[in-house]
């Protein structure tokens, strides 16, 4: 008997490649169709191997803009009634539907995927925790750790997350990505290295309005995961990237660190670089490493992290994975390669490769970021004078 399908159901033999990432943000907030992001990620098909692809879209549900868009993947279809009963008691349901999809040749075993547009009851004094975001996080964690075979893999207001096992062109066709409109898009093309290629393991990873697409390997995953568990985040997606979404939520939403400092937690300067800084800056960076040592993301990585109104590109501190940034008009592009950006926009105002550990940030209504050639670190404004 040939038992290979049990051991290796997707034929994940060792091949050498890398993940591909792209993000496009219109800083005016003007929505545009998913056509461009699909063009970009499909151009980098070579970087993946068909074991995962996905898209995040910000502003794609204007009709339910003030609702949490819970995207639920049912690997065990029978769990749906149970999950719906849980969600029904935890939230006020506004609308729900199966995520529309098209017949796509070559896709294997797509799970049932449903989306629920829900509100949190503001007047419920008995709700624990009282903080609305914390409450949503706790509900997401509760379903994902229940063992029912259901995963809430998207939970942001007005944020769509579409992902699965397949090539970028297949996943784009399956979910009809070109038919959605958003002002901020990110996309991923997966080449799984150490973890299985399954629908929940495709990128983006999301929590509240955070989404993360990632190229690389997180060798500090165990440390990061244990630290995040102590803060109430539970990793259930069987892929290292998940910790970055939760770390972003902890650092920037709960602990209110500006992105410039959160970047220095995940990709801290080397000690020999810190030693060359002014005493006040040294103090800041030493303190960050002492307080958040367990959130240092070790190993090679490039990520595009997004939330409502913000798109962040970041690489590890010695840039062992690629990132190209470019601007044109009011658009910011971030991608693993320059070619997909050029294919979308033949003319560009600027193109650069950001220094490792230095975040590139696009913000709604703000001027576009520009190349910073200098490695000299400046302490962000958070340091008291």
């Amino acid at each position: 008997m040939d038992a290979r399908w049990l051991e290796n159901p997707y034929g994940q033999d060792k091949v050498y490649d890398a993940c591909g990432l792209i993000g496009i943000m219109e800083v005016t907030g003007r929505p545009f169709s998913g056509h461009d992001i699909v063009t970009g990620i499909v151009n980098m098909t070579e970087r993946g191997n068909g074991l995962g692809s996905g898209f995040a879209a910000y502003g794609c549900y204007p009709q339910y803009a003030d609702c949490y868009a819970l995207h639920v993947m049912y690997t065990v279809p029978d769990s749906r009634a149970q999950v719906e009963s849980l969600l029904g008691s935890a939230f006020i349901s506004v609308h729900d539907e199966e995520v529309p999809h098209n017949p796509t040749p070559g896709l294997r075993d797509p799970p049932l995927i449903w989306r629920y547009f829900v509100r949190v009851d503001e007047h419920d004094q008995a709700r624990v925790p009282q903080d609305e975001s914390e409450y949503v996080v706790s509900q997401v964690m509760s379903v994902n750790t229940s063992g029912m075979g259901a995963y809430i893999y998207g939970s942001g207001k007005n944020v769509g997350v579409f992902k699965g096992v397949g090539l970028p062109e297949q996943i784009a066709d399956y979910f009809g990505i070109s038919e959605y409109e958003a002002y901020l898009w990110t996309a991923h093309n997966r080449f799984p290295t150490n973890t299985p290629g399954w629908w929940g393991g495709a990128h983006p990873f999301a929590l509240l309005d955070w989404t993360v697409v990632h190229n690389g390997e997180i060798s500090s995953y165990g440390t990061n995961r244990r630290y995040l568990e102590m803060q109430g985040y539970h990793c259930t997606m069987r892929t290292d990237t998940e910790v970055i979404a939760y770390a972003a939520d902890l650092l920037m939403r709960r602990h209110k660190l500006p992105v410039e400092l959160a970047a220095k937690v995940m990709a801290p300067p080397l000690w020999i670089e810190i030693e060359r800084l002014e005493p006040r800056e040294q103090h800041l960076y030493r303190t960050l490493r002492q307080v958040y040592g367990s959130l240092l993301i070790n190993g090679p990585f490039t990520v595009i992290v997004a939330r409502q109104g913000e798109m962040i590109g970041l690489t590890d501190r010695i840039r062992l994975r690629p990132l190209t940034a470019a601007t044109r008009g009011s658009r910011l592009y971030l991608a693993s390669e320059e070619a997909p950006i050029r294919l979308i926009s033949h003319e560009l105002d600027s193109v650069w490769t950001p220094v490792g550990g230095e975040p590139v940030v696009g913000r709604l209504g703000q001027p576009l970021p520009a190349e910073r050639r200098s490695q000299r670190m400046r302490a962000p404004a958070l340091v008291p004078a």
Partner: protein
Amino acid sequence: MIECVQPTLQIDALGLHYRELNNRLRQAVGTGVCRIELQNVYGQRYLGTDLHQPVEIHIHGTPGNDLGSFMDGPRIVVHGNAQDGCGNTMNGGELIIHGRAGDATGHSMRGGRIFVRDDVGYRVAIHMKEYEGQRPAVVIGGTAQHFLGEYMAGGILVVLGLNLEPGERHTASFIGTGMHGGVMYIRGEVDDYQLGKEVGSVSLTEADDQILRPLVEEFAAHFGQDVAQILDRPFTKLAPLSVRPYGQLYAY
């Protein structure tokens, strides 16, 4: 310029997979074509690999990673930017890039020359090497990012910094980390903290001028620059302190 009797072959690369595109290059060169223009190149990898004849290939667009890898003889001119790993393990020929180039440009290169008009990314000329008559050279018109010349084992690496503003310095750090062969010439000054532990700064001699000048002349000819103006500013020469820096790393 290569003497060419056959007409220039035009190829529209839009939507062509790199395997198909490289097949067509191979076939064309096999039939004696000696000048090819590629239009609409968007990320096709390994262009020019496996070509062993003198041929001039002009690329319009953005060639993909590992441009000219293992190439042996052709001249590739890019009218735009190149991505990561161009010239990977190239054995002979030339890459002339009218734009910037990405990380690991000249990776493990063992012969031939690369000229980049603007800046380059991380780890340029990583593990470039030389053997007997083979001595590769990489000349960068702009400046470089970190780990320049990492583990460099041979060849010549020149960084001209022509696009730096007055008073602006090269910002690359960890220059020459693990370097154990070859030589680097950086126009302008580099502080000690920017150097890896395995390299040191040494004085230039007449012999260095004989290496540097022809490369600068060639660079200037490609990109319309003034040789005298480039050579007017002092260079920093960097050389390895040891030919075997890690000989004791795993031995006690």
